[in-house]
């Protein structure tokens, strides 16, 4: 290890990255010491992931310099060169080869050989054992296939793999999202071991309590800019949340006194009682009222999408009851849910929400083709007419016969929304309705959601990881954490500050039973 005096291990100097119309990274400068565990914080879209992708070589930076131990990281950095400079990243989805053994994975392409050709398996396993021992994980059998290991063990193997090529900086991107409480503790032990060996850990997490347990420092980003770096011992969670949101946003309490929903039992559109899938969702109950837009906030991994898919019948419901307009409904398949007047706009419009190979007008009427056909025979003129109506009313920019794949993200999303509006549901679930969509289209989609809920007997659910979005469009917000609804934020209490504090604080509080 180099003993240069007070020279930081990792120096990020004026790094920028542009996407069309967006400064994803705006002149970011930041130093990190050897053996430092630094939490990297910021809201969605703040630029954390982009910065880490620049470091690990997944994307090229557009400007600025990065030095590791004084050596400049090339601009056209690739994951391979980044490894050569000692930077490794551990993603949420592990990148191990599940059919190979632990040892083979750790030394993939670096296997010790006999006569330059044949893999020396004895040596391979001995070396792998050594690497795992450094992480105090020598209980892992290096002969096992990776798929036979539990998730936290797989993470250990991934870390060991990083260390096998003399790694100086390890980036962990939300490593605890799918870990249980005990598993998280074990991961923290590993992080401490790494720190004691002088390895720098950059730790991306939204869970405030974790950061206070494990990190030495916290760097905060907002809107692509570096905001500040603070010592954990000298700060508290409120101060960090303030850095993340910026004080400017304090005034955004738009909904106070603005909510017209009558919160009375005769006004309930959907009543969900204690539903569970037996795995991820633990007894969720809530009521949805006519004219209401109900938000679901939470961290990534808080299982909001899983809850929505269960309401919609896309995934199996194990126990609990759902009532729509007072009547209990069977929850089997999406077709059943649609008959029950529940709709679900997927967060993945390309994979699940739209048929990209079909035209705009075909997509628009796909759910309710009965309305455009007689005895199964399609009236194409009627389809065109319906599409043109939606095109006008929700401002879709595209031709009726064009393929959906030729549209921009915002227009695709509008087609997906038109499709659900045409389905005639009473309850529409919008899952991340504005992900990857520009600001102008966002505002239009908010209007559409509100307009939908303004109809008598209808109500919307909005799942969003964007706190500002929840504040803008929702009457009431439920906060979820690890598959449970942990807090209900009332209409007169909604603000970005209030929501973010709830989401971040509750994020780590619910322990696994």
């Amino acid at each position, binding site marked *: 290890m180099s003993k240069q005096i007070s020279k930081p291990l990792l120096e990020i100097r004026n790094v920028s990255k542009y*996407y*069309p*119309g*967006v400064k*994803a990274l705006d002149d970011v400068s930041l130093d990190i010491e050897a053996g430092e565990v630094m939490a990297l914080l910021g809201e969605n*879209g703040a630029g954390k*992931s*982009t910065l880490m992708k620049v470091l690990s070589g997944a994307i090229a930076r557009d400007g600025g310099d990065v030095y590791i131990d004084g050596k400049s990281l090339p601009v056209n950095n690739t994951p391979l060169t980044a490894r050569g400079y000692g930077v490794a990243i551990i993603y949420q989805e592990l990148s191990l080869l599940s059919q190979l053994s632990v040892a083979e994975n750790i030394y993939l392409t670096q296997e010790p050989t006999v006569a330059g050709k044949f893999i020396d398996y004895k040596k391979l396993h001995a070396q792998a054992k050594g690497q795992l021992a450094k992480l105090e994980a020598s209980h892992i059998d290096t002969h096992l296939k990776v798929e036979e290991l539990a998730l936290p063990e797989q993470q250990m193997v991934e870390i060991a793999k990083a260390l096998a090529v003399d790694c100086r900086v390890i980036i962990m991107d939300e490593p605890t999202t799918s870990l249980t409480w005990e598993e998280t503790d074990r991961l923290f032990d590993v992080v401490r071991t790494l720190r004691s060996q002088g390895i720098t850990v950059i730790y991306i997490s939204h869970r405030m309590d974790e950061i206070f347990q494990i990190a030495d420092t916290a760097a905060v980003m907002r809107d692509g800019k570096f905001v500040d770096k603070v010592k954990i011992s000298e700060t508290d969670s409120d101060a960090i949340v303030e850095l993340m949101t910026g004080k400017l946003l304090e005034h955004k309490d738009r909904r106070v006194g603005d909510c017209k929903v009558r919160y009375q039992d005769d006004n309930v559109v959907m009543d969900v009682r204690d539903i569970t899938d037996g795995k991820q969702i633990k007894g969720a109950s809530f009521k949805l009222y006519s004219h209401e837009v109900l938000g679901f906030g939470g961290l990534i991994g808080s299982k909001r999408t899983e809850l929505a898919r269960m309401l*919609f019948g*896309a995934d199996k419901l194990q126990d609990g009851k759902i009532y729509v307009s007072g009547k209990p409904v069977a929850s089997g*398949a*999406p*077709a059943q*849910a*649609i*008959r029950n007047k529940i709709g*679900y706009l*997927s967060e993945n419009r390309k*994979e*699940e*929400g*739209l*048929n*990209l*190979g*079909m035209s705009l007008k*075909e997509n628009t009427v*796909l*759910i309710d*083709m*009965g309305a455009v*056909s007689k005895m*199964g*025979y*399609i009236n194409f003129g009627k389809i065109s007419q319906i599409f043109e109506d939606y095109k006008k009313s929700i401002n879709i920019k*595209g*031709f009726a016969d*064009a*393929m959906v*794949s*030729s*549209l*921009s*993200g915002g227009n695709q999303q509008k087609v997906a929304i038109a*499709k659900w509006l045409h*389905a005639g549901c009473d309850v529409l679930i919008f899952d991340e309705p504005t992900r*990857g969509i*520009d600001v102008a289209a966002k505002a239009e989609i908010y209007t559409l959601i509100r307009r939908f809920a303004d109809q008598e007997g209808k109500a919307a659910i909005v799942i969003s990881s964007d706190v500002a979005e929840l504040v803008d469009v929702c009457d009431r917000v439920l906060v979820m954490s690890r598959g449970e609804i942990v807090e209900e934020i009332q209409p007169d209490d909604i603000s970005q500050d209030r929501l973010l504090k709830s989401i971040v604080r509750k994020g780590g509080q619910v322990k696994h039973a």
Partner: protein
Amino acid sequence: MPSTALSSQKTTSQIVKEQIVGKFGVIIGLIFLFAVFGFLSPAFRTWGNVTNILIQSGTNAVIAAGMTFVIIAGGTDLSVGSTVALSSVIGADIMIKTGNVGLGIIVSLFFGLVCGAFNGVLIAYIGLPPFIVTLSTMWLYRGIAYVLTAGQAIVNLPEANMKLALGRFLGLPAIVWLMLFVYVICYIVLAKLTIGRKIYATGDNNESARLSGINVKGIKTLVFVISGFLAALGGVILMSRLNSGQPVAGQSFEMSAIAAAVIGGTSMTKGGVGGISGTLIGALFISTLLNGLVILNVSSFWQQVFMGVVVLCAVALDIYRKQLSK
């Protein structure tokens, strides 16, 4: 991540190019083929030979129509050739035993449905991959056909069985009328009925179709049932032309059927792409090619080489088309 996809509408010239590569490419190819063979051989350019080509394409065209349903829904059916064999030996057996040709045909078609439904249920409800299921049933159905007949052809069918092969109506062979009838029905189902949109949607994106409330399992079963039924109908045509039920019939018919669909612009690499009219042209293209080569005295070995080249070109066109539409 902020990703502002600034994709725009296609230009008219792009759409025209796509149409040429897509729908009209194969028609242009067919016309070209006719021109070349017609130029080289006076025997080729007779009305009698044209009728011949139409008759020769009958069985393949009918089977390929069913194959098109399966491929558009995102699958493939390798068992059609064996379905031809199994359904026709059963039908022939019934004809011999009862002397009733109509009953034989109905039973034959029914077993086509059964073969297709068996494929469909395994694929849609058990979730096995279409390639593996139909590869297995390709052997299974053929094997049963051999077992039932001890490998022998069932001959001396009632004379009425030949009516289809020999009959003519308004100057065209009955087989051609049957083929056209099948294609009109298939065209209506795929292009005009809601069920057709559901088949396309399922092939284009299974999950999206499911979340749109489409019964994707039912759709997947249905397309295999259609494929099995039309394979049996192809078998009925063959049985009439050969005036026998043969357990060896239909060898590698699945390949010709897939080739017809692919030449016609239905995509093997991506479900939800293609159409029934292209498949008809594709089937005509194949029989024109083979017919012309025979008339020109090209050896059957070279015929296979030409077939391979044509299918490769069709697949290359398919890939090119996909790049165009990006």
